[in-house]
């Protein structure tokens, strides 16, 4: 229990009045907020309803210290322009901002990152907030998405996970994609054509992994996914082009699995959000500003103290100007850069609850496109081999797309998006050619690379509110399977913001709390 959860206040004179006021109005407030207390007797500390392990209690008893963040700055405005500002004339058609409107100075909800997660969250929030209900601003560094993970993704959709939350999110993702043309259309705006290829995912397992595959399959079918288990013989009958050496069991997705076009979904979300009134700002986040709030003493809980509330973000425009945006809540959806940007808010640089940083960092992954005239025909699903290599058909001309997650000591550097072709020759092609004899004769056509927003803790998304900065939400760290879960995550964040709790899918196990409590939630197979 927090006995000294907040630092002692150094009462500044302009805050002292508030403190005195709260003392004077104590009797009235206590009637309104709690049972009236007429004595100063020491109340017993309130026992927590959950039992905290002893070695963790010591950590909780420590103070949570929020390090000093950005200094408050007042943006410099020319005095003549300032007087016109008051009249409301200038500020429009400002060529410095991305969308040529006056630079927004405040908003209700700020979303950092305009990739698929950010746009999905903006869409869901604004859909309930309509035109003037909620003011939502998305801060995106690069609106052409040259280095964004979303558009460089292979675009898979599968329900073959081992965690029920992941399965439910993907099921909803499939449902949303089916209705996306209608939902993301508007007046004068045609909905996106996501180009879903319904060919399924095929996971191959050796003897060691067969038990896990069976357990996963049971969970997936109980939640409504349609997955079929195939023995090695049945697999050979169904897909004659496959080499079943070493394969004990396979699981094939029959419905709602395949791949789609991430760029059109991103554009669909973004255009619909723009139509509903979300403001997209082209800027880079460089700092946060906090405001000290007095937390009054509550008997039995703790002394009075000072809580640093995140109030304002500093963003740098492309010409170097630094502007500020006040917000009420902030959502971190910056993808691969989320760990770095969260540090600007003090997450990872303080003590107590702010000691743990967001464990999300960029990891580079390669995708190779080759032509194989003797490859499998139309019914090639996205096949994930026992070695971790995957491949799928691309188009109708005999092209295929393949890749592999490297092992821990082979991780490529993330400074740029250059492709390493030796990785294909040494790692990907041997695995893929062994599994499909038709891939022995291929010609590599092209390749690209992209970043995973890799969660180094347990490779699953971080979705929820930070325990100290209660107006700071996370929606990041999906480590390669975020695209298919974006509609569900957007809806979950909308529920958290507007209702305070999850209504449809319970994602409380994916909260940031698990990083502090050191309780990883692992998924068994990662592509």
């Amino acid at each position: 229990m927090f006995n000294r959860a907040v630092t002692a206040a150094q009462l500044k004179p302009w805050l002292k009045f508030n403190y005195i006021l709260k003392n004077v109005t104590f009797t009235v407030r206590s009637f309104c907020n709690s049972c009236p207390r007429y004595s100063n007797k020491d109340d017993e500390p309130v026992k927590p309803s959950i039992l905290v392990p002893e070695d963790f209690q010591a950590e909780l008893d420590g103070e949570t210290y929020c390090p000093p963040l950005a200094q408050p700055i007042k943006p410099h405005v020319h005095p003549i322009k300032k007087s016109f500002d008051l009249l409301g004339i200038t500020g429009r058609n400002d060529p410095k901002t991305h969308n040529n409107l006056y630079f927004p100075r405040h908003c209700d909800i700020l979303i950092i990152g305009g990739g698929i997660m950010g746009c999905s969250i903006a869409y869901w929030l604004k859909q309930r907030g309509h035109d003037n209900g909620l003011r939502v601003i998305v801060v995106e560094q690069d609106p052409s998405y040259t280095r964004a993970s979303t558009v460089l993704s292979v675009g898979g959709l599968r329900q073959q996970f081992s965690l029920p939350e992941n399965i439910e999110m993907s099921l909803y993702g499939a449902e949303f994609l089916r209705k996306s043309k209608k939902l993301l259309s508007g007046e004068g705006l045609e909905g996106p054509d996501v180009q879903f290829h319904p060919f399924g995912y095929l996971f191959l397992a050796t003897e060691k992994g067969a038990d896990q595959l069976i357990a996963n399959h049971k969970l997936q079918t109980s939640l409504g996914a349609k997955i079929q288990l195939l023995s090695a013989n049945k697999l050979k009958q169904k897909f004659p082009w496959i080499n079943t050496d070493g394969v004990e069991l396979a699981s094939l997705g029959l419905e709602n699995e395949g791949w789609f076009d991430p760029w059109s979904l991103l554009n669909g979300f973004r255009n619909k959000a723009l139509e509903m009134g979300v403001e997209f700002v082209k800027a880079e986040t460089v700092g946060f500003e906090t405001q000290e709030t007095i937390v009054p003493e509550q008997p039995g809980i703790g002394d009075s103290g000072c809580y640093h509330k995140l109030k304002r973000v500093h963003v740098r425009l492309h010409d170097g100007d630094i502007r500020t945006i006040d917000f009420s809540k902030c959502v971190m959806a910056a993808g691969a850069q989320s760990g770095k940007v969260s540090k600007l808010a003090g997450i990872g640089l303080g003590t107590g609850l702010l000691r743990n940083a967001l464990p999300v960092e960029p990891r580079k992954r390669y995708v190779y496109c080759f032509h194989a005239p003797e490859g499998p025909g139309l019914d090639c699903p996205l096949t994930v081999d026992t070695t971790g290599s995957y491949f799928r058909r691309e188009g109708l001309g005999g092209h295929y797309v393949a890749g592999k997650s490297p092992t821990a000591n082979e991780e490529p550097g993330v400074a740029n998006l250059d492709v390493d072709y030796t990785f294909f020759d040494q790692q990907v092609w041997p695995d893929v050619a062994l599994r499909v004899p038709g891939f022995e004769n291929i010609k590599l056509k092209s390749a690209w690379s992209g970043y995973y927003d890799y969660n180094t803790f347990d490779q699953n998304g971080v979705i929820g509110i930070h325990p100290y900065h209660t107006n700071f939400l996370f929606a990041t760290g999906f480590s390669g399977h975020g695209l298919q879960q974006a509609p569900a995550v957007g809806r979950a964040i909308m529920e958290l913001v507007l209702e305070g709790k999850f209504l449809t899918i319970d994602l409380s196990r994916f909260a940031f709390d698990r990083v502090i409590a050191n309780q990883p939630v692992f998924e068994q197979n990662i592509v």
Partner: protein
Amino acid sequence: MAISYSRLTHLRLAEKFRRSCTSISSQRPVPVSSQISKIDHKKMMKPEKKEDRVIYELPKVYVEENTTGLALFSSNTNYGIKVIEVMNAIKFTPYGLRQTWDLFQEDKLLRSQIYIKERAEFLGPELATAHFLCFRGGKVRFHGQEDWITQDPDSDMLTSLPKFYVESYKVEAADCSKMTLIYEGLENMKNMENLKWLSLEGCPHIDDWCLDRISGEYGNTLEYLDIRNCHRVTDKGIASLSKMKKLKTLILGGHPEAKNLELVCLMLEDILPEITIRGIVYCDESLLKPSEAKE
């Protein structure tokens, strides 16, 4: 011929199918306990409200149990956003009104075709499908019978279908042409053992997702499929029919959005061993004529 059973027999049969119908159900029962790293703490977790999931929560700063004098006027739900939603529910512009009307119509269509579990439990999957389709203007033929069963144009009652579960009725052919079937409606046609013949000619709402559902559902048994004039079908949906290994006849035509139809059909013919595709013209006849005239 309507066969009537005693009440006890009816209950016994309903129970039997209640169990068989939950094989792939649309509801989500209790999930199996999922993977969490095992840390050995004594007395670690709080008693479960939910099923097997272990939830670890950090303690809250402000305790929520308050007995307040003014609690009568407070609530946990956030009504502010609901007020905004009610105010902005219908936009009174021409586009907004049309959008609201379309939403109502879609909702009505969905509610008329949603999967009803009790119907499948009571009648068994085959007869439930038959009732569902015939009531909405489709036709059904059972295995071993020659006549198609349709609805009388005059009445709502389906006199030629049994109203209780009969084991010998197995649906072999379903004619859904020109019905307004949607994706959620196709869920009513699941768990059939041996559907060989399916016609979806002229159904306006059939698209790639519906074809995905059909090929996932009847991938092992379907032999004849007719999807003429389904305007939303693209070549990706037709390519997904490659999952149906026993398909013998496929009838196409009238797909304005299918771009590479001939190529997809050629590739389908490579993969599916017994297929014949009707409705596709692979080469242009007029190009052949001048050379024949010369010779």
